[in-house]
């Protein structure tokens, strides 16, 4: 296999965007081409989860490749739930590594705010098992609520710890121009004050409003290429060194230990093994905190902390910018936003920015090894990526 490098990146704001999905996909592509000087590609992969359902548009990649005037390059749409983004990066990696293509563009794009919040939540709930979960009214927030309750009881995690994830990630997002939420929050405001129950109502007990990510529109792009072509861009050499994917049962109740995120553990292990690094070598990570509890548990399952110690590390400031292992310097899904199909590409965008030392005020010092965890379904399909800066 050939080594695969990042040649260019691009992103839109993650927020409510008032322009068509195809353009949400095209702008980050344009940004990445402009930045890298790359004007033609061999193949485009577009990660998207809901265009056919939410935006009444199918065959998104064909529309995007034409919009960017990149025809006759190949183009495919990749749908893998909320892990579509990292899955598309995986396809791009395989295309370049195999020698089939030299330059591949990976775009993630989603426009969820075209419908109201209930419809968006229902669209995401179609990920659940149709007969064993969906018919009961199960949504992703409710799965997260049931998961959190059990996990909190088992490991002594409290609502306070969950709120600390939100406070940290909102703070990180303050320095991210592209983040959805530029709103600094405090434990006082969302937990302790008399107004807290109004500011932060329960949504899926024990999870509250500020334990959940917003519903976002947004797009992100990564151009992947060979070592020779990447050198020409003049950017620091960042290699996509590890790609790991794993799955778990479709229905959450089927898992032997319902507090396990087995697919995260396996995907992370594969990604680290391929990259030849250990969790302790990682300097910066973007984890899939669609719900605050997930950042804590994923940080354990990825191998950064012992089981049951993720919330302790959080409390001690380990995971904030300036700590030993900053997690979600972009603001994470919690505050940067979660345009489902674009999220995995957005995470990779942040890691590349960090490894290029171009993250501005939220820069993690001397970041050389970065990690992303993109979590699909309620942990039934997970893709983890490891990036290494060379030189």
């Amino acid at each position, binding site marked *: 296999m050939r080594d695969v490098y990042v040649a260019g990146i691009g992103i839109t704001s993650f927020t409510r965007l008032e322009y068509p999905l195809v353009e949400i996909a095209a702008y980050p592509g344009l940004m990445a081409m402009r930045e890298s000087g790359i004007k033609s590609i061999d193949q485009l992969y577009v990660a998207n989860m809901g265009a056919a359902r939410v935006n009444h548009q199918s065959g998104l990649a064909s529309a995007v490749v034409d919009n960017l005037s990149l025809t006759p390059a190949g183009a495919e749409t990749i749908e893998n739930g909320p892990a579509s983004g990292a899955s598309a990066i995986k396809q791009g990696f395989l295309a370049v590594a195999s020698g089939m293509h030299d330059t591949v563009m990976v775009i993630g794009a989603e426009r969820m705010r075209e419908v109201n*919040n*209930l*419809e968006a*939540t*229902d669209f995401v*709930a179609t990920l659940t*098992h149709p*007969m*064993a*979960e969906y*018919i*009961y*009214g*199960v*949504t992703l*927030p*409710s799965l997260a*609520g*049931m*998961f959190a*309750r*059990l996990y909190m*009881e088992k490991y002594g995690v409290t609502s306070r710890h969950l709120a600390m994830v939100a406070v940290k990630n909102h703070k990180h997002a303050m320095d991210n121009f592209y983040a959805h939420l530029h709103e600094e929050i405090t434990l006082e405001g969302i937990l302790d004050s008399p107004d807290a129950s109004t500011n932060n*109502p*329960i*949504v*899926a*007990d*024990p*999870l509250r409003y500020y334990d959940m990510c917003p519903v976002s529109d947004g797009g992100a792009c990564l151009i992947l290429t060979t070592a020779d072509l990447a050198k020409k861009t003049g950017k620091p050499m960042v290699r996509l060194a590890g790609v790991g994917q794993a799955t778990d049962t*479709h*229905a*959450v*109740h*089927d898992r032997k230990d*319902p507090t396990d995120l087995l697919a995260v553990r396996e995907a992370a292990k594969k990604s680290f093994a391929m990259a030849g690094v250990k969790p302790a070598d990682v300097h910066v990570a973007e984890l899939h905190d669609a719900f605050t509890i997930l950042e804590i548990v994923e940080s354990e399952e990825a191998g950064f902390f012992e089981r049951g110690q993720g919330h302790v590390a959080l409390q001690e400031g380990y995971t904030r910018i300036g700590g030993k292992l900053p997690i979600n310097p972009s603001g994470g899904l919690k505050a940067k936003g979660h345009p489902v199909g674009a999220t995995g590409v957005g995470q990779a965008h942040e890691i590349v920015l960090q490894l290029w030392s171009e993250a501005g005020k939220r820069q993690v010092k001397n970041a050389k090894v970065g990690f992303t965890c993109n979590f699909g379904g309620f942990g039934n399909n997970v893709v983890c990526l490891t990036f290494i800066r060379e030189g």
Partner: protein
Amino acid sequence: MERNIYAYKCKRCGHVQYPYRTICRNCHENDHNEFDIVPLPKKGKLLTFTHLFNPPSDFSTVFLSLGIVELEDGSRITGQLSIERPTIGMHVRANVEVVRKDEYNQYYGMVFYEA
């Protein structure tokens, strides 16, 4: 008539799975449809639960209580709860009722009550 939710018992190894899978998760040996259809027990223990305050639009209630229950035979199921103050580990019993209605269909599933 008493309604049931049915699980799938592998004809080769006896493992009971719910929901349906084409291949048995335990022995991986069976061919298509080599299952006996068996009713799931209706008594069990509540493993975890949530009260969902933004239920999907098919539901007209203010909140929806959902839980995962470990049934007497060790199999597990997700269901709705009709219990005012659920606690982890409490004993529950199920009734099979309409759990969701939309424009065209109604769906039956397990609703759990305090045992």
